[in-house]
């Protein structure tokens, strides 16, 4: 029952409040299943995947580098002064690197890509939906999810770990800049601490997180845009705006939720 009608009857509204999120979750799960399976449908869409890699990966590079650099520098500053209280500033490299590789790298990279690319995807698909472009694909016997969503999903899975690696590297160098160059910790101490503190399982755990975040974030953003017309709170251009906002908020929350679940298994 649509929201407008259910509002007239409080009992119906209560029912709607329960049923709509369950329907929405089910729809999102089916959407993910379809977009994943259609990745393997012949012929493969190399051209579209490359175009999306350029959009998600290359065009996010600057913002990821900037975020990584400042995050690493802040961690270096905060870590140095905190550790110096206990005379442990020698483990600054370990503290910065582990924070970045295990947590901040995958999470902040996902946030940056969601903010830059995910919101754009949601807005594009939503405006295609309300102007019947998605229906037009269907009438041409072109599967809209295969055409629009699957290449984005593959591109995100390929780009997120690479961007995370770049974020981690720049962040560690940012920590070196603030901890060693500005505050005087020996560079040998910093880098040997990085090397001794970070294990392979920390790195692979971080990459596993980035892969999961890629699927969660891009699927959520595409889903919100693709089904913008089902939004209970708005139609037309308002539906586009709501889809974009919903995509960013929901995918960020889901990334943090997935982060907690993964961390609890990885530790």
């Amino acid at each position, binding site marked *: 029952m649509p929201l407008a009608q259910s509002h007239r009857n409080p009992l119906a509204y209560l029912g709607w409040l329960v049923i709509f999120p369950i329907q929405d979750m089910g729809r999102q799960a089916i959407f993910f299943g379809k977009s994943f399976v259609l990745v393997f449908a012949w012929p493969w869409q190399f051209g579209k995947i490359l175009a999306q890699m350029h959009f998600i990966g290359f065009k996010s590079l600057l913002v990821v580098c900037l975020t990584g650099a400042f995050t690493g520098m802040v961690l270096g500053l905060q870590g140095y002064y905190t550790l110096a209280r206990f005379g442990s500033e020698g483990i600054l490299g370990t503290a910065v690197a582990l924070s970045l590789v295990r947590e901040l790298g995958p999470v902040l990279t996902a946030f940056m890509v969601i903010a830059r690319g995910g919101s754009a995807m949601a807005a594009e698909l939503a405006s*295609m939906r309300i*102007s019947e472009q998605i*229906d037009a694909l*269907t*009438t*041409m016997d*072109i599967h809209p999810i295969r055409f629009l969503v699957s290449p984005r999903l593959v591109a995100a899975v390929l780009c997120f770990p690479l961007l995370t690696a770049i974020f981690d590297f720049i962040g560690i160098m940012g920590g070196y800049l603030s901890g060693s160059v500005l505050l005087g910790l020996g560079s040998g101490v910093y880098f040997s601490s990085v090397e001794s503190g970070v294990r392979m399982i920390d790195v692979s755990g971080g990459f596993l997180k980035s892969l999961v975040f890629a699927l969660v974030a891009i699927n959520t953003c595409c889903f919100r845009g693709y089904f913008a017309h089902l939004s209970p709170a708005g139609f037309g251009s308002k539906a586009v705006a709501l889809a974009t906002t919903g995509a960013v908020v929901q995918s960020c929350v889901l990334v943090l939720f997935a982060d907690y679940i993964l961390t609890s298994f990885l530790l």
Partner: protein
Amino acid sequence: MAEPFIQIQGLQKAFGGKNVLNGVDLDIYRGEITAILGKSGEGKSVLLKHIIGLLRPDAGRILVEGRDLWASGGAFRKEVFRRFGYLFQGTALFDSMTVFENVALPLVERSRLGRIQVAERVHKVLELLDLHEVDDKYVSQLSGGMQKRVALARAMVTDPQVLLFDEPTTGLDPMRSAAVLEMIAEHHRKLGFTGVLVSHAVPDVLYICQRVAFLNEGRIIFQGSPQQLAQETLPGVRQFFRTVEYQWKNPIWHAAPGQAAGPELEPSTRG
């Protein structure tokens, strides 16, 4: 009479508790253009979307060559999508693509044609529709009339057996509107496709169609030839045509004293 190509039987559809289609029965014959007339908001576009399978009926059946569109599986609906072309009321062109990319898309995605063959087919259909030197332009750089023609080119580029037109002349000036209808009629003569046309361009549309269906309050209250429609005495049909006739004879511009306000409605041989 031959077996209908498409049969719509007892079609019902409601949106948000409001009935739009209340048991539509309609037969569409092979090789004919069927015009669906009716007031705005009567559900003509909804009916057209049911015919191609974009919307699923709440009740009733749509039979294509005797096979139920929704009971014959997804493969049959895919086949229908391949054999049908659809011109959307709002064009539904891809605004992030150029004109060439828009028209070429169904060929690139569905056919095994090479680049050169695709380009030849696209340029041929663009020429036919009088669209010159617009290949590299984006949709937003075109006028409304040109956008309609590009959408028509995209619908026609795969040579579909059935073409569904959702108000192909809306938003066009009278000359362009007549030209588009003439073009549809000309291509129909050449290619012999089956057409279903939703339009408000009365009486022009009556000159190019072989059958007319009149949708009123969610039901088809008349179907027959344009000549039979002219003799029809049903209140809903007569009321619609009286309004059209009145507007034609009493246009909002004022005729000079002693001059006729508008031409009489006479069937012509056009189309």
